[in-house]
């Protein structure tokens, strides 16, 4: 029942103002139920890592993070995609009720189609800094970090590379969300550098309720870590439909 008292104590202020005197200032993601699980929103400057097996909704949550920023706080965003073609993103967004092409025409959104190597070297040379200033970008989603793992680098460890991405994006004052594929239930057995380094970690699952073959699968979202602030301590059911991820706040598992 700890969860209930947590919910009662949650801050009600979702005004989205930044840089207040409050030492624990939060940046609301704009996804209301998620902000509640995070005790009001992302602690300012926290990087957000969204993990899950394929098909669990990572890309959708990433798109929703940018959509909410645009619609609710007028914060332009950038979606960096390595594998998913932009056209497919537009199509998938449309099915969720979001017109990403219109956002792009209005200069509120920038979908960048690139590869990990090109992204890293452009980050290093401030090309993205120019885009950030040009568009007034406030949010970025990188989908997905898994592509960084697929090529070895003689120069640096995955850990250093990951830090480099986060720091370069933070340098430009962006709120950073990254996605990463994990095998189902991998988390309890293996902790990865990404999980150490990210400030806030969210795990998505799509699992059967029990071991029987005809048992229904349910989607859950769980906050694993939230540096600098409290967070909900249980897995929450959600579904996906128009509007994106819809968290069922009351139904903890």
């Amino acid at each position, binding site marked *: 029942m700890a969860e209930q008292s947590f919910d009662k104590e949650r801050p009600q202020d979702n005004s989205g103002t930044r840089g207040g005197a409050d030492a624990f200032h939060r940046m609301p993601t704009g996804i209301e139920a998620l902000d509640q699980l995070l005790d009001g929103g992302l602690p300012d400057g926290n990087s957000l890592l969204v993990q899950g097996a394929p098909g669990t909704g990572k890309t959708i949550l990433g798109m929703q993070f940018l959509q909410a920023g645009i619609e609710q706080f007028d914060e332009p965003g950038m979606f960096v995609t390595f594998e998913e*073609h*932009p*056209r497919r993103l537009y199509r998938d967004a449309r099915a969720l009720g979001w017109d990403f092409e219109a956002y792009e025409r209005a200069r509120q959104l*920038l*979908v*960048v*189609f*690139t*590869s*990990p*190597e*090109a992204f*890293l*070297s*452009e980050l*290093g*040379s401030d*090309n*993205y800094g*120019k*885009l950030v200033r*040009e*568009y007034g970008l406030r949010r970025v989603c990188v989908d997905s970090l898994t592509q960084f*793992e*697929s*090529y*070895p680098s003689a120069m640096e460890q*995955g850990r250093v590379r990951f830090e480099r991405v986060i720091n370069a994006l933070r340098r430009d004052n962006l709120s950073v969300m990254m996605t990463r594929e994990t095998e189902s239930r991998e988390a309890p057995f293996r902790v990865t550098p990404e999980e150490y380094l990210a400030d806030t970690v969210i795990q998505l699952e799509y699992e059967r309720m029990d071991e029987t073959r005809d048992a229904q699968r349910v989607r859950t979202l769980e906050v694993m870590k939230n540096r600098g602030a409290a967070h909900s301590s249980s897995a929450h059911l959600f579904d996906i439909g128009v509007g994106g991820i819809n968290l069922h706040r009351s139904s903890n598992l």
Partner: protein
Amino acid sequence: MTPTLPTFDPLLWEALPDLNLNIAQTAELCGISVRQLGYWTRQGYVMAQGKGTRRTYGLESVRRLLAIRKAMNSGLSLRQALRSVADLSPSSAPPIISLPITSPTAAKACAFSLSPSDAASLSKSLHAFFLANGRTRDHAGGLAIKLGRFEEDVQAAAEALCAAGILVSMPCAGMTVYRQAGEKNLG
């Protein structure tokens, strides 16, 4: 002219049942980029042992990679090449390509180069790709994966499109990143 790969010496294959190459060695031997090898592995086109950067490739995988490359060299798309090697199994298929064990870089010597008409059609595909995906900014290796073509060929096509004023190249930390020309505000 399309270079041909050397023919197979069965004795070399039989001598290598325990072949176990790391990613860089496999990529070099098969004449593909490390990135492309990683992608093909993740897509399940080729099998590897181990995980992440410690993956290794055995004889069957190397043979399969060389067969895919050979098929693509003869003009097949990646998809068609995969179909053509689908039933390549150790017992049934005659060995296809030689494995130049003495000099891995020999594989590179038969690097791909497209005939003039193929090169022109690749330039067209690349141009079409940029038109369809206007926000692309990528280096030749990344584009090669997205187009399912070889990096050297894509590099040449991208340079041709730069010369024609269609693409812009941005030298950047030891690599060249390409984007569409005339795209305002895109750095």
